[in-house]
């Protein structure tokens, strides 16, 4: 198992290097002077020249990448073109907020999605099953930013129950987390249902039932763990969707996270911050996938930790 984890970690390194090259390339691909792009549209000519010298922008791309990487490993992502503060500081101020939002959304999605999926599978074709699967279809199709606005309209403007934006108390988390988590809830419900139905059809479940076991034991002890395997895979993939959705949700609810910082920076042409935010989200996503792979291997005893399966 440890060998598997280490191998999986080693496999993530080329991906992370690739991500760093792509992020490094963002500024170089933008039409115009990279020094101007890094320094900002309103920077003085002196500052632009200073940036050009510091980052060796007149040298070859490989030299520039080397400078970029050596700064990166020291935690130096440059300075914001807008505030002149270090990008790392800007990101670290915002990142916990994105984490809180994504985690809350995931908790909502797992709790409601899995419960709805299990009940739907055990009470197939019931009113609950039909209703929850219809709701899931709509939940997957609804644009996250529109859902957010509709929740604001209902719960903040009309009913006045919850704040429509900002941060501070637990009430501020409810609407953004619900908004962000709804599509994932819907997807997890659908996957759990079909996966449970598949497992409930297996011979060992028939055996368990014929032994006279209580239905609750059959479902929770014999079916659930096996039914969870595809659900865990989807959860890992969905974390990416959540991070992407966070960009939109944070904008709707004025939630001071990485997503909103990134959008504001794109609109303000503050490219060093854009680079930093993209890099952070991508690295975080790679690490989440790594964790999911390890959980997956733990859940599914059929996965051997040998080299073949890793490839």
């Amino acid at each position, binding site marked *: 198992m440890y060998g598997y984890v280490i191998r999986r970690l080693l496999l993530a390194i080329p991906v992370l290097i690739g991500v760093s090259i792509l992020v490094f390339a963002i500024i170089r691909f933008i039409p115009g002077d990279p020094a101007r792009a890094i320094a900002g549209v309103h920077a003085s000519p002196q500052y632009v020249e200073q940036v050009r010298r510091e980052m060796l922008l007149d040298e070859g791309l490989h030299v520039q990448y080397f400078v970029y990487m050596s700064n990166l490993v020291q935690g130096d992502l440059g300075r914001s073109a807008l505030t002149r503060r270090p990008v790392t500081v800007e990101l670290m101020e915002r990142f916990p907020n994105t984490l809180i939002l994504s985690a809350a959304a995931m908790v909502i999605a797992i709790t409601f999605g899995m419960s709805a999926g299990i009940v739907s599978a055990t009470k197939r074709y019931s009113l609950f099953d039909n209703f929850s699967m219809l709701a899931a279809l709509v939940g997957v*199709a609804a*644009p996250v*930013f529109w859902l957010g606005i509709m929740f604001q309209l209902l719960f903040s403007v009309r009913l006045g129950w919850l704040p429509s934006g900002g941060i501070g108390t637990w009430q501020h988390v409810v609407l953004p987390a619900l908004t962000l988590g709804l599509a994932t809830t819907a997807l997890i419900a659908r996957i759990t249902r079909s996966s449970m139905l598949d497992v409930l059809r297996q011979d060992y479940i028939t055996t368990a039932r014929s032994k006279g076991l209580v239905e609750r034991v059959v479902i929770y002890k014999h079916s659930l763990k096996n039914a969870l395997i595809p659900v865990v895979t989807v959860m890992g993939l969905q974390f*990416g969707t959540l991070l*992407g959705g966070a960009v939109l949700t944070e904008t709707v609810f004025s939630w001071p996270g990485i997503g909103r910082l990134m959008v504001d920076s794109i609109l303000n042409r503050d490219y060093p911050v854009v680079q930093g935010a993209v890099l952070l989200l991508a690295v975080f996503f*790679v690490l989440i996938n790594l964790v999911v792979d390890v959980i997956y291997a733990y859940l599914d005893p059929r996965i051997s930790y040998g080299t073949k399966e890793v490839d």
Partner: protein
Amino acid sequence: MKKPEREPLKKPEKKVDQISKLPTPKRDTELRQVWRHLKRNRLAMLGMGILLIFLVCAIFAPFLTPYDPIRADFGNTLQDPSSEHRLGTDWLGRDVLARIIFGSRISLAIGLISVSIGLLIGVPIGALSGYYGGKFDLIVQRLIDILIAFPGILLAIVIVTVLGVGVENVMIAVGIASIPIYTRLVRGSVLSVKEQGFVAAAKSLGIGDGRIILRHIMPNCLGPILVQSTFQVATAILWAAGLGFLGLGAQPPDPEWGAMLSRGREYIRTAHFLTTYPGSAILLMVLGFNLLGDGLRDALDPRSRRYR
């Protein structure tokens, strides 16, 4: 005594009639079988119906509404829905329904063109990667790993940042962001198909690689590609609307649904219809493609029919 003798004579005649009404096996192509399954699936038909309505809106937009979706009418700003303006008017007095009808052109175009871009690049790379394997496959897969490290819409945002805002760039960005999905899918399909007997037979006959891929392997991968493309159009529409909402997609005065929503938010307390209806349009179009995709998957894969 004569009566019972006549009756059994009639029965076989009826049977012959019934059998002759059945379609002959020759005419029952795979496409017909898929269509037959699809026709029986009510949700898929609902999805198709929704998409048909949007398609009619997109093609005949100028004939369906007397209003101009772009020209301002300052005498009619922020009107509530009425018999004259069914879904109300916006801050510039433009008819919301007219803008939604014309907006279906933009959303459908973004969905279909970006998926075409993804298909045109992703499918050949996936097919070659799966067929030849080896170092080429290894390099392609590692590059795809890097692209997949960026969560979907984030990759599209990064590409738009580099290319600049606008509908055309959104199509390119969303198209590029969907390449990894097709490459992975087609590679997987090719890997399973290429091991089958008929491919080995074609090789032993001396047929070239290109012809084997195009004539013998790809036709067997079309099902999953078709299903994925239907879902991908839905995803592309959602991503594009998201980019429009963030101000990175279509620019004013284009009647793009995401951008309409973004601006309409400012009037949420007084004119909620400026956000409710464009959002409902996005939801319906995405739902239409998802329902059709679900139906196609079930029709093409008999195993998944169990789950309905």
